[in-house]
Protein backbone atom coordinates (compact mmCIF):
# COMPACT_ATOMS: atom_id res chain seq x y z
CA UNK A 1 0.00 0.00 0.00
CA UNK A 2 1.27 3.46 -0.84
CA UNK A 3 -0.74 6.50 0.27
CA UNK A 4 1.76 9.07 -0.96
CA UNK A 5 -0.02 11.46 -3.34
CA UNK A 6 0.69 14.70 -5.10
CA UNK A 7 -0.90 17.59 -3.22
CA UNK A 8 -2.37 19.04 -6.45
CA UNK A 9 -4.26 15.79 -7.09
CA UNK A 10 -5.64 15.72 -3.57
CA UNK A 11 -6.85 19.30 -3.72
CA UNK A 12 -8.49 18.53 -7.08
CA UNK A 13 -11.04 16.45 -5.14
CA UNK A 14 -11.98 19.37 -2.89
CA UNK A 15 -15.21 21.01 -4.06
CA UNK A 16 -17.17 24.16 -3.27
CA UNK A 17 -19.29 23.78 -0.14
CA UNK A 18 -17.02 21.18 1.47
CA UNK A 19 -16.56 20.88 5.23
CA UNK A 20 -12.86 20.82 6.13
CA UNK A 21 -10.86 20.58 9.32
CA UNK A 22 -7.42 22.11 9.65
CA UNK A 23 -4.91 21.00 12.26
CA UNK A 24 -2.52 23.43 13.93
CA UNK A 25 -2.68 26.37 16.28
CA UNK A 26 -1.85 29.86 14.98
CA UNK A 27 0.48 28.32 12.36
CA UNK A 28 2.38 26.00 14.73
CA UNK A 29 1.55 22.50 13.49
CA UNK A 30 -0.54 23.92 10.66
CA UNK A 31 -0.50 22.27 7.19
CA UNK A 32 0.74 25.39 5.40
CA UNK A 33 1.21 23.83 1.93
CA UNK A 34 -2.33 22.42 1.96
CA UNK A 35 -3.77 25.82 2.85
CA UNK A 36 -1.72 27.49 0.13
CA UNK A 37 -3.19 25.09 -2.45
CA UNK A 38 -6.74 25.52 -1.15
CA UNK A 39 -6.28 29.29 -1.46
CA UNK A 40 -4.93 28.99 -5.01
CA UNK A 41 -7.70 26.61 -6.09
CA UNK A 42 -10.21 29.17 -4.81
CA UNK A 43 -12.92 26.75 -3.61
CA UNK A 44 -15.83 28.66 -2.07
CA UNK A 45 -18.50 28.26 0.60
CA UNK A 46 -16.28 26.17 2.82
CA UNK A 47 -17.24 25.21 6.32
CA UNK A 48 -13.92 25.51 8.14
CA UNK A 49 -13.28 23.77 11.44
CA UNK A 50 -10.13 25.07 13.14
CA UNK A 51 -9.44 25.54 16.84
CA UNK A 52 -8.45 29.18 16.39
CA UNK A 53 -8.16 31.55 13.46
CA UNK A 54 -5.03 32.90 11.82
CA UNK A 55 -1.59 33.80 13.19
CA UNK A 56 -1.78 37.34 14.68
CA UNK A 57 0.68 39.14 12.43
CA UNK A 58 0.99 40.10 8.78
CA UNK A 59 3.37 37.89 6.88
CA UNK A 60 3.54 37.10 3.19
CA UNK A 61 4.29 33.42 2.68
CA UNK A 62 1.92 32.32 -0.06
CA UNK A 63 2.32 33.89 -3.48
CA UNK A 64 -1.28 35.02 -3.03
CA UNK A 65 -0.10 37.10 -0.06
CA UNK A 66 -0.78 36.38 3.57
CA UNK A 67 -0.01 33.51 5.89
CA UNK A 68 -1.74 30.75 7.81
CA UNK A 69 -5.56 30.96 7.55
CA UNK A 70 -5.90 34.68 6.73
CA UNK A 71 -5.99 34.34 2.89
CA UNK A 72 -8.98 31.96 3.10
CA UNK A 73 -10.95 34.83 4.67
CA UNK A 74 -9.42 37.58 2.54
CA UNK A 75 -10.63 35.61 -0.52
CA UNK A 76 -14.11 35.02 0.97
CA UNK A 77 -13.70 31.24 0.69
CA UNK A 78 -15.26 30.46 4.06
CA UNK A 79 -19.02 30.55 4.61
CA UNK A 80 -18.98 29.18 8.12
CA UNK A 81 -16.30 28.68 10.73
CA UNK A 82 -16.52 26.43 13.79
CA UNK A 83 -13.88 27.56 16.28
CA UNK A 84 -13.01 28.74 19.79
CA UNK A 85 -11.49 32.07 18.76
CA UNK A 86 -11.49 34.33 15.73
CA UNK A 87 -10.18 37.63 17.08
CA UNK A 88 -6.79 37.30 15.37
CA UNK A 89 -8.33 37.60 11.89
CA UNK A 90 -9.54 41.09 10.99
CA UNK A 91 -10.84 39.78 7.64
CA UNK A 92 -13.04 37.22 9.41
CA UNK A 93 -14.42 39.74 11.91
CA UNK A 94 -15.24 42.11 9.04
CA UNK A 95 -16.96 39.32 7.07
CA UNK A 96 -18.96 38.43 10.18
CA UNK A 97 -20.08 42.06 10.53
CA UNK A 98 -21.20 42.09 6.91
CA UNK A 99 -23.13 38.85 7.31
CA UNK A 100 -20.91 36.98 4.84
CA UNK A 101 -19.47 34.66 7.46
CA UNK A 102 -21.17 32.68 10.18
CA UNK A 103 -19.10 31.82 13.22
CA UNK A 104 -20.08 29.11 15.64
CA UNK A 105 -18.09 29.26 18.88
CA UNK A 106 -17.32 26.43 21.22
CA UNK A 107 -15.07 26.54 24.29
CA UNK A 108 -11.71 25.10 23.26
CA UNK A 109 -12.02 22.03 25.45
CA UNK A 110 -15.51 21.33 24.13
CA UNK A 111 -14.37 21.92 20.55
CA UNK A 112 -11.65 19.27 20.76
CA UNK A 113 -13.89 16.77 22.59
CA UNK A 114 -16.64 17.17 19.96
CA UNK A 115 -14.11 16.21 17.31
CA UNK A 116 -12.73 13.36 19.39
CA UNK A 117 -16.31 12.11 19.76
CA UNK A 118 -16.79 12.43 16.00
CA UNK A 119 -13.75 10.27 15.36
CA UNK A 120 -14.40 7.84 18.17
CA UNK A 121 -17.97 6.92 17.31
CA UNK A 122 -19.42 8.53 20.42
CA UNK A 123 -22.84 10.17 20.50
CA UNK A 124 -21.50 13.28 22.20
CA UNK A 125 -19.78 14.41 25.37
CA UNK A 126 -21.04 15.89 28.64
CA UNK A 127 -19.11 18.90 29.88
CA UNK A 128 -19.62 21.36 32.72
CA UNK A 129 -17.93 24.04 30.59
CA UNK A 130 -20.38 26.68 29.40
CA UNK A 131 -23.05 26.09 32.03
CA UNK A 132 -24.49 29.48 32.98
CA UNK A 133 -23.35 31.09 29.72
CA UNK A 134 -24.64 31.62 26.17
CA UNK A 135 -23.24 28.15 25.36
CA UNK A 136 -26.35 26.65 26.96
CA UNK A 137 -28.58 28.03 24.19
CA UNK A 138 -30.23 25.30 22.16
CA UNK A 139 -28.37 22.52 23.96
CA UNK A 140 -29.52 19.74 26.22
CA UNK A 141 -28.54 20.11 29.86
CA UNK A 142 -28.27 16.85 31.80
CA UNK A 143 -27.97 16.53 35.54
CA UNK A 144 -25.65 13.71 36.62
CA UNK A 145 -25.14 13.10 40.34
CA UNK A 146 -26.44 16.56 41.13
CA UNK A 147 -24.13 18.41 38.72
CA UNK A 148 -25.25 20.04 35.47
CA UNK A 149 -23.56 19.26 32.16
CA UNK A 150 -24.02 20.40 28.58
CA UNK A 151 -24.41 17.77 25.90
CA UNK A 152 -22.00 18.64 23.10
CA UNK A 153 -22.57 16.70 19.89
CA UNK A 154 -19.91 15.05 17.74
CA UNK A 155 -18.25 16.95 14.91
CA UNK A 156 -16.85 15.48 11.69
CA UNK A 157 -15.68 16.77 8.32
CA UNK A 158 -15.33 15.52 4.76
CA UNK A 159 -11.65 16.46 4.68
CA UNK A 160 -9.08 16.84 7.44
CA UNK A 161 -5.72 18.39 6.67
CA UNK A 162 -3.14 17.64 9.33
CA UNK A 163 0.53 18.45 9.71
CA UNK A 164 3.18 16.03 10.92
CA UNK A 165 6.92 15.59 11.02
CA UNK A 166 7.41 12.24 9.30
CA UNK A 167 5.14 9.76 7.55
CA UNK A 168 5.66 6.36 5.99
CA UNK A 169 3.82 5.27 2.83
CA UNK A 170 1.30 3.35 4.94
CA UNK A 171 0.22 6.65 6.51
CA UNK A 172 1.73 6.33 9.98
CA UNK A 173 2.41 9.84 11.27
CA UNK A 174 5.08 11.00 13.71
CA UNK A 175 4.65 14.45 15.23
CA UNK A 176 7.21 16.96 16.39
CA UNK A 177 7.04 19.39 19.32
CA UNK A 178 3.95 21.43 20.11
CA UNK A 179 3.05 21.06 16.42
CA UNK A 180 1.19 18.04 17.77
CA UNK A 181 -1.71 20.13 19.22
CA UNK A 182 -5.00 19.41 17.40
CA UNK A 183 -3.60 17.16 14.66
CA UNK A 184 -4.03 13.65 16.13
CA UNK A 185 -7.64 14.35 17.14
CA UNK A 186 -8.62 15.91 13.80
CA UNK A 187 -6.97 13.03 11.94
CA UNK A 188 -9.62 10.64 13.28
CA UNK A 189 -12.72 12.68 12.46
CA UNK A 190 -12.88 13.05 8.68
CA UNK A 191 -13.90 10.92 5.73
CA UNK A 192 -10.62 11.75 4.01
CA UNK A 193 -7.57 12.70 6.09
CA UNK A 194 -4.59 14.24 4.33
CA UNK A 195 -1.28 14.38 6.20
CA UNK A 196 1.26 17.00 5.15
CA UNK A 197 4.69 16.11 6.51
CA UNK A 198 8.25 17.41 6.52
CA UNK A 199 9.65 14.07 5.45
CA UNK A 200 8.39 10.83 3.92
CA UNK A 201 10.37 7.84 5.18
CA UNK A 202 10.29 4.10 4.58
CA UNK A 203 7.95 1.59 6.18
CA UNK A 204 9.49 0.59 9.50
CA UNK A 205 11.54 3.77 9.89
CA UNK A 206 9.19 5.21 12.52
CA UNK A 207 9.39 3.53 15.92
CA UNK A 208 5.87 2.14 16.54
CA UNK A 209 5.61 3.96 19.87
CA UNK A 210 6.46 7.25 18.12
CA UNK A 211 3.49 6.88 15.75
CA UNK A 212 1.16 9.65 16.91
CA UNK A 213 -1.54 8.89 14.33
CA UNK A 214 -1.82 5.28 13.23
CA UNK A 215 -2.05 4.71 9.47
CA UNK A 216 -5.67 3.56 9.73
CA UNK A 217 -6.82 7.18 10.03
CA UNK A 218 -4.83 8.55 7.09
CA UNK A 219 -5.90 8.39 3.44
CA UNK A 220 -3.18 10.47 1.79
CA UNK A 221 0.36 11.56 2.61
CA UNK A 222 1.76 14.66 0.91
CA UNK A 223 5.16 16.27 1.02
CA UNK A 224 5.15 19.65 2.78
CA UNK A 225 8.05 21.93 3.59
CA UNK A 226 11.10 20.01 4.71
CA UNK A 227 11.98 20.62 8.34
CA UNK A 228 14.83 22.91 7.30
CA UNK A 229 12.50 24.92 5.04
CA UNK A 230 9.84 25.15 7.76
CA UNK A 231 12.45 26.36 10.27
CA UNK A 232 13.48 29.07 7.78
CA UNK A 233 9.84 30.13 7.25
CA UNK A 234 9.18 30.45 10.98
CA UNK A 235 12.49 32.19 11.71
CA UNK A 236 11.72 34.78 9.06
CA UNK A 237 8.05 35.07 10.06
CA UNK A 238 8.76 35.47 13.79
CA UNK A 239 11.49 38.05 13.13
CA UNK A 240 9.39 40.06 10.63
CA UNK A 241 6.35 40.05 12.93
CA UNK A 242 8.43 41.16 15.91
CA UNK A 243 8.18 37.99 18.00
CA UNK A 244 11.94 37.49 18.14
CA UNK A 245 14.29 40.39 18.64
CA UNK A 246 17.27 40.51 16.36
CA UNK A 247 20.38 41.62 18.26
CA UNK A 248 21.77 44.85 16.81
CA UNK A 249 25.01 43.12 15.80
CA UNK A 250 23.13 40.50 13.76
CA UNK A 251 21.03 42.90 11.69
Amino acid sequence: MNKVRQLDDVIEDLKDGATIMLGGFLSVGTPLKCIEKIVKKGVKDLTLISVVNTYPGKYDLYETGGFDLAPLFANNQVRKMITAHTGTCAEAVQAMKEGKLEIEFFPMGSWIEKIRAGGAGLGGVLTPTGIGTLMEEGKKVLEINGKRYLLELPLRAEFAFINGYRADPLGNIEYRGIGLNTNPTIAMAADYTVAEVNEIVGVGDIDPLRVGTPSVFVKAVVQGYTLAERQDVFRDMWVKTGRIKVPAAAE
Partner: protein
Amino acid sequence: MEAKDLIARRAALELADGEIVNLGFGMPTEVANHVPAGVNVVLQSENGCLMFGPTPVLGKQDADIGNAGGQPITLLPGASIFDLATSFCIIRGGHVDTTILGALEVDQEGSIANWAMPVAPGKYSPGMGGAMDLVTGAHKVVAVLQHNDKKGGSKVLKKCSLPVTGKGVLKTIITEKAVFDVTPQGLVLKEIAEGLTPETLRDVTDADFTVDPGLCRYRLPN
Protein backbone atom coordinates in the same frame (compact mmCIF):
# COMPACT_ATOMS: atom_id res chain seq x y z
CA MET B 1 4.02 52.89 37.55
CA GLU B 2 1.46 52.19 34.84
CA ALA B 3 -1.80 50.55 35.90
CA LYS B 4 -1.12 47.42 33.83
CA ASP B 5 2.30 47.03 35.35
CA LEU B 6 0.94 47.41 38.88
CA ILE B 7 -1.73 44.81 38.23
CA ALA B 8 0.72 42.29 36.76
CA ARG B 9 3.07 42.72 39.74
CA ARG B 10 0.31 42.40 42.30
CA ALA B 11 -1.16 39.35 40.56
CA ALA B 12 2.19 37.57 40.87
CA LEU B 13 1.59 37.41 44.65
CA GLU B 14 -1.37 35.11 43.98
CA LEU B 15 0.94 32.31 42.89
CA ALA B 16 2.28 29.76 45.36
CA ASP B 17 5.33 27.57 45.09
CA GLY B 18 4.73 24.35 43.16
CA GLU B 19 1.45 25.40 41.59
CA ILE B 20 0.32 24.49 38.08
CA VAL B 21 -0.56 27.84 36.53
CA ASN B 22 -2.24 28.97 33.34
CA LEU B 23 -1.84 32.64 32.41
CA GLY B 24 -4.13 34.31 29.91
CA PHE B 25 -2.86 36.70 27.24
CA GLY B 26 -2.08 40.37 27.72
CA MET B 27 -1.61 41.51 31.31
CA PRO B 28 -1.62 37.96 32.72
CA THR B 29 1.32 36.98 30.48
CA GLU B 30 3.37 39.70 32.20
CA VAL B 31 2.71 38.14 35.60
CA ALA B 32 5.38 35.50 34.88
CA ASN B 33 8.03 38.24 34.95
CA HIS B 34 7.21 39.20 38.55
CA VAL B 35 6.93 35.88 40.37
CA PRO B 36 8.75 36.33 43.71
CA ALA B 37 12.10 34.59 44.26
CA GLY B 38 11.64 31.17 45.82
CA VAL B 39 8.27 30.65 44.19
CA ASN B 40 8.55 28.13 41.36
CA VAL B 41 5.43 27.50 39.36
CA VAL B 42 4.76 25.19 36.44
CA LEU B 43 3.33 27.20 33.55
CA GLN B 44 0.93 25.55 31.13
CA SER B 45 0.39 26.68 27.56
CA GLU B 46 -3.03 25.34 26.58
CA ASN B 47 -1.97 24.46 23.05
CA GLY B 48 -0.02 21.62 24.60
CA CYS B 49 2.87 21.95 27.04
CA LEU B 50 3.84 22.24 30.68
CA MET B 51 6.97 24.04 31.95
CA PHE B 52 7.71 26.51 29.25
CA GLY B 53 10.35 29.18 29.63
CA PRO B 54 11.13 32.60 28.17
CA THR B 55 11.06 33.70 24.55
CA PRO B 56 14.11 32.28 22.76
CA VAL B 57 16.92 34.44 21.49
CA LEU B 58 17.34 34.46 17.72
CA GLY B 59 18.71 31.14 16.55
CA LYS B 60 17.22 29.17 19.46
CA GLN B 61 13.64 29.26 18.15
CA ASP B 62 11.96 26.15 16.75
CA ALA B 63 9.10 26.18 14.23
CA ASP B 64 7.30 23.50 16.24
CA ILE B 65 7.65 25.15 19.66
CA GLY B 66 5.19 28.02 20.07
CA ASN B 67 2.65 29.11 22.66
CA ALA B 68 -1.10 29.64 22.42
CA GLY B 69 -0.43 33.15 21.11
CA GLY B 70 1.61 31.85 18.18
CA GLN B 71 4.83 33.13 19.73
CA PRO B 72 8.05 31.16 19.96
CA ILE B 73 8.81 29.82 23.43
CA THR B 74 11.44 27.65 25.04
CA LEU B 75 10.92 24.51 27.09
CA LEU B 76 12.53 24.14 30.51
CA PRO B 77 14.11 20.91 31.75
CA GLY B 78 11.22 18.75 32.91
CA ALA B 79 8.81 20.10 30.30
CA SER B 80 6.21 17.90 28.65
CA ILE B 81 4.28 18.14 25.39
CA PHE B 82 0.83 16.68 24.77
CA ASP B 83 -2.07 17.05 22.37
CA LEU B 84 -4.89 19.57 22.82
CA ALA B 85 -7.39 17.01 24.14
CA THR B 86 -4.96 16.09 26.94
CA SER B 87 -4.29 19.75 27.59
CA PHE B 88 -7.98 20.30 28.28
CA CYS B 89 -8.13 17.18 30.44
CA ILE B 90 -5.57 19.02 32.58
CA ILE B 91 -7.69 22.18 32.56
CA ARG B 92 -11.23 20.84 32.81
CA GLY B 93 -10.23 17.91 34.98
CA GLY B 94 -9.17 20.10 37.88
CA HIS B 95 -5.39 19.75 37.51
CA VAL B 96 -4.67 23.49 37.21
CA ASP B 97 -4.23 25.24 40.56
CA THR B 98 -4.47 28.86 39.51
CA THR B 99 -5.44 30.73 36.39
CA ILE B 100 -5.07 34.47 35.93
CA LEU B 101 -7.29 35.91 33.21
CA GLY B 102 -7.81 39.35 31.76
CA ALA B 103 -11.40 40.60 31.86
CA LEU B 104 -13.62 43.10 30.09
CA GLU B 105 -15.97 43.15 33.10
CA VAL B 106 -16.36 41.40 36.44
CA ASP B 107 -19.20 41.53 38.91
CA GLN B 108 -20.00 41.17 42.60
CA GLU B 109 -21.37 37.67 42.05
CA GLY B 110 -17.93 36.56 40.89
CA SER B 111 -18.79 36.39 37.22
CA ILE B 112 -16.28 37.32 34.53
CA ALA B 113 -16.88 38.49 30.97
CA ASN B 114 -13.88 38.28 28.67
CA TRP B 115 -14.87 36.59 25.41
CA ALA B 116 -17.66 38.42 23.68
CA MET B 117 -17.83 41.94 22.34
CA PRO B 118 -20.79 42.55 20.05
CA VAL B 119 -19.75 43.17 16.41
CA ALA B 120 -23.32 42.98 15.07
CA PRO B 121 -26.66 42.07 16.68
CA GLY B 122 -26.27 38.61 18.22
CA LYS B 123 -22.74 38.26 16.83
CA TYR B 124 -19.66 38.32 18.96
CA SER B 125 -15.88 38.37 18.73
CA PRO B 126 -13.19 37.37 19.62
CA GLY B 127 -14.35 34.07 21.17
CA MET B 128 -13.56 32.32 24.42
CA GLY B 129 -10.55 30.25 23.42
CA GLY B 130 -9.72 28.18 26.48
CA ALA B 131 -11.12 30.65 29.04
CA MET B 132 -14.48 28.97 29.64
CA ASP B 133 -12.75 25.67 30.40
CA LEU B 134 -10.22 27.40 32.65
CA VAL B 135 -12.88 29.13 34.77
CA THR B 136 -14.70 25.79 35.02
CA GLY B 137 -11.74 23.61 35.96
CA ALA B 138 -9.07 25.70 37.71
CA HIS B 139 -9.17 25.68 41.51
CA LYS B 140 -8.50 29.39 41.80
CA VAL B 141 -9.60 31.89 39.17
CA VAL B 142 -8.14 35.40 39.39
CA ALA B 143 -9.41 38.23 37.19
CA VAL B 144 -7.14 41.15 36.38
CA LEU B 145 -8.44 44.33 34.78
CA GLN B 146 -8.22 48.08 34.96
CA HIS B 147 -10.75 49.39 37.42
CA ASN B 148 -12.40 51.86 35.06
CA ASP B 149 -12.86 52.23 31.33
CA LYS B 150 -11.53 55.20 29.34
CA LYS B 151 -14.64 57.23 30.15
CA GLY B 152 -14.28 56.49 33.85
CA GLY B 153 -17.07 53.90 33.99
CA SER B 154 -16.59 51.08 36.47
CA LYS B 155 -15.64 47.65 35.10
CA VAL B 156 -16.27 46.11 38.52
CA LEU B 157 -20.04 45.86 38.27
CA LYS B 158 -23.10 44.74 40.16
CA LYS B 159 -23.85 42.52 37.17
CA CYS B 160 -21.85 41.95 33.98
CA SER B 161 -23.48 43.55 30.94
CA LEU B 162 -21.55 41.45 28.38
CA PRO B 163 -22.05 37.69 27.91
CA VAL B 164 -20.20 35.98 30.74
CA THR B 165 -17.34 33.50 30.45
CA GLY B 166 -18.32 31.94 33.75
CA LYS B 167 -20.93 32.63 36.38
CA GLY B 168 -19.78 32.92 39.99
CA VAL B 169 -16.35 31.48 39.23
CA LEU B 170 -13.96 34.17 40.52
CA LYS B 171 -12.02 33.92 43.75
CA THR B 172 -10.07 37.18 43.49
CA ILE B 173 -10.33 40.43 41.50
CA ILE B 174 -7.25 42.59 41.05
CA THR B 175 -7.36 46.11 39.61
CA GLU B 176 -4.81 48.90 39.91
CA LYS B 177 -6.98 50.44 42.63
CA ALA B 178 -7.99 47.46 44.72
CA VAL B 179 -7.93 43.77 45.49
CA PHE B 180 -11.25 42.06 46.25
CA ASP B 181 -12.00 38.59 47.49
CA VAL B 182 -15.20 37.11 46.13
CA THR B 183 -17.19 35.46 48.93
CA PRO B 184 -20.71 34.01 49.14
CA GLN B 185 -21.63 37.31 50.84
CA GLY B 186 -20.24 39.40 47.99
CA LEU B 187 -17.04 41.32 47.38
CA VAL B 188 -14.68 42.00 50.27
CA LEU B 189 -12.11 44.76 49.89
CA LYS B 190 -8.75 43.36 51.02
CA GLU B 191 -6.23 45.88 49.68
CA ILE B 192 -6.49 49.43 48.46
CA ALA B 193 -4.10 51.60 46.43
CA GLU B 194 -2.19 54.53 47.85
CA GLY B 195 -4.26 57.74 47.87
CA LEU B 196 -7.64 56.01 48.03
CA THR B 197 -10.04 55.31 50.88
CA PRO B 198 -12.91 52.82 50.83
CA GLU B 199 -15.24 55.81 50.40
CA THR B 200 -13.41 57.30 47.41
CA LEU B 201 -13.13 53.79 45.93
CA ARG B 202 -16.92 53.44 46.13
CA ASP B 203 -17.25 56.58 43.98
CA VAL B 204 -15.49 54.82 41.09
CA THR B 205 -16.93 51.33 41.67
CA ASP B 206 -20.36 50.15 40.58
CA ALA B 207 -20.24 46.91 42.60
CA ASP B 208 -21.15 46.78 46.26
CA PHE B 209 -18.40 45.66 48.61
CA THR B 210 -17.65 45.32 52.29
CA VAL B 211 -14.33 46.26 53.85
CA ASP B 212 -12.19 43.57 55.42
CA PRO B 213 -11.22 44.38 59.02
CA GLY B 214 -7.63 43.66 58.02
CA LEU B 215 -7.71 46.03 55.02
CA CYS B 216 -4.18 46.88 53.96
CA ARG B 217 -2.33 48.91 51.36
CA TYR B 218 -1.94 47.42 47.88
CA ARG B 219 0.92 44.94 48.11
CA LEU B 220 3.67 44.50 45.52
CA PRO B 221 6.48 41.93 45.28
CA ASN B 222 9.87 43.14 46.51
